[in-house]
């Protein structure tokens, strides 16, 4: 066990190797490039395969092939690249293939910029690709949490035979923090369904086509049972100073870290404010949020987007409390003083920008 100072992007790579991932297929895009840079060296040390594909589309399809062949596999990208991967992600969900997909979000839409953003929440949690499918979406807020969630992501992907997404942003990818690197005892489950060559057994098939509607509906219903199980078993969140809170802030990832600073400063002024930080964005902690919100008078959602997670917060609260919003767009970060100002408005009985 050792403590190391690592960049978020590198920490994802090290955590993947710790989790037994030996195959990485990627394509360069800022601000996640340190991850492939790290993986090309690290996978060589452990006898793995790093392959730079000709496009994000190819990279995700290489993941499809490798996952279908039974390997623990990862790809990473940033917003525009994830848009390109969505076709493959839908196919992987349809063919029930495990993989970890990293999105270090940047400003959009379109080419946008390379600054940190959280504007891919809808894309990550509401499908993104075509068809009825869900991904477990995990949103770390520190480099250590990146390590822990990345390791968990590989376990969950194999457990459910479904892709899992790590949703970070440019700040998390680029910042350095101490992390604990430890030897893990990895037990990769047997994959009797994988295409390894039909030696002494019936052929295996990795597939998402069901041409007749009846079997396709059956396949979908079976997937839905799995998605509901995934939803039940994987709700994760962090509560911060919520015990006596009258005002509740809801934020994830980098926004949540900034919001904590604002909450501490508001507390110094005697404002009773706390934070619920969803760690799993899908499944979203609807019930927990509703429970915490019972005791508060106002809710403020903070995001680095025009307001996407706020829709899930409103669903959770189901009209029981006013939900206000503060967001910065296009790669701009909310700062502590801005969030504090919004909290102060709510504390005086006013409304935020929402």
């Amino acid at each position, binding site marked *: 066990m050792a403590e190391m100072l690592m960049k978020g992007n590198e920490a994802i790579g090290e955590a993947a190797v710790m989790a037994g991932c030996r*195959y990485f*297929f990627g394509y360069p895009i800022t601000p996640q490039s340190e991850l492939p840079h790290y993986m090309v060296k690290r996978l060589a040390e452990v006898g793995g*395969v790093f*392959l730079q*594909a*000709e*496009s994000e*589309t*190819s*990279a995700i*399809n*290489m*993941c*499809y*092939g*490798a*996952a*279908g*062949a*039974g*390997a623990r*596999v990862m790809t990473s990208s940033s917003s525009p690249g994830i848009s390109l991967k969505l*076709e*493959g992600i839908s*196919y992987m969900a349809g*063919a029930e293939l495990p993989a970890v997909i990293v999105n270090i979000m940047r400003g959009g839409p379109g080419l946008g910029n390379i600054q940190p953003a959280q504007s891919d929440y809808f894309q990550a949690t509401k499908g993104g690709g075509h068809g009825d499918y869900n991904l477990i979406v995990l949103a770390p807020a520190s480099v250590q949490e990146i390590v822990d969630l990345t390791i968990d992501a590989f376990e969950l992907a194999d457990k459910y035979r479904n892709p899992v997404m790590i949703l970070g942003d440019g700040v998390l990818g680029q910042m350095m923090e101490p992390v604990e690197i430890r030897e893990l005892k990895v037990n990769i489950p047997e994959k009797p369904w994988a*295409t*390894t*060559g*039909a*030696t*002494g057994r019936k*052929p*295996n*098939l*990795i*597939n*998402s*086509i069901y*041409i007749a509607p009846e079997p396709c509906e059956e396949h979908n219903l079976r997937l839905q049972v799995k998605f509901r199980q995934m939803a039940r078993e994987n709700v994760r969140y962090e509560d911060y100073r919520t015990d006596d809170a009258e005002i509740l802030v809801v934020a994830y990832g980098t926004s949540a870290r900034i919001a904590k600073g604002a909450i501490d400063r508001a507390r110094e002024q005697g404002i009773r404010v706390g934070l619920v930080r969803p760690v799993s964005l899908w499944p979203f902690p609807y019930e927990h949020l509703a429970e915490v919100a019972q005791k508060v008078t106002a809710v403020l959602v903070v995001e680095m987007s025009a307001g996407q997670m706020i829709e899930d917060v409103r669903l959770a609260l189901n009209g029981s409390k006013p939900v206000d919003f503060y967001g910065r767009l296009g790669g701009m970060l909310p700062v502590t003083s801005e969030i504090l100002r919004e909290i102060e408005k709510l504390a005086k009985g006013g409304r935020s920008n929402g």
Partner: protein
Amino acid sequence: MVKVFERPKSLTGKPFHYCPGCTHGIIHRLVAETIDELGIRETTIGVGPVGCSVFIFEYMNLDFQQASHGRAPAVATGVKRVHPGKTVFTYQGDGDLAAIGTAEIVHAAARGERITVIFVNNAIYGMTGGQLAPTTLVGMETTTSPVGRNQETQGSPVRVSEMLSTLDGAGYIARVSVHDPKHIIQAKKAIRKAFANQMSGVGFSLVEVLSTCPTNWGLHPIEATKWLADNLIPYYPLGEFKVPPAPAKAEREVE
């Protein structure tokens, strides 16, 4: 009694769904015979396309992955990198490989990916209803070129084998046809080479197989084989475009 002819073990025996006169069935059989002869049925993983042959996995008695449109070479790359000792092949049509999957095939070849590609070229999109393909001949009528492919606005057909044979990573590239028994025997030889090459570590191998589509060409199956010989072969000449260097030649000094 000695059995002199039987169904290859690499075929499941499920009747093909292909249209009368379509040559997919012949090509499936040639691939299956090759896999049987090389004794690799239990160590081969196929990757299927999107198009008429999307259900190839139902006919081939071996492990299969079904890929999205055009991405079979990327999927095969993933499989091969995980199982470098196994034989991995893709089976793709001309819409799949030469249009939407152009990037994937070019870069799999450029990397010298040790996979075998069976590329079935019938100069048209079959399953979706006979549309213009990148391989459709100039003047050829399709549902999206109803008065014939217009070179001015719809460009010229892509010669995939010639194009890929310019890449250093390509180890073996051949174009064959299955419109008559003589050519079927030649096609079989090329397919066998393309699989054997993979087993001996030669890089990327591709066999382009000129194929018929009587339904979408609007021709009787027999007319279709004649049309292929008279029209496709002049534009898509048969032969080996790239062969791996023989060991003796490789050792020869460069002049």
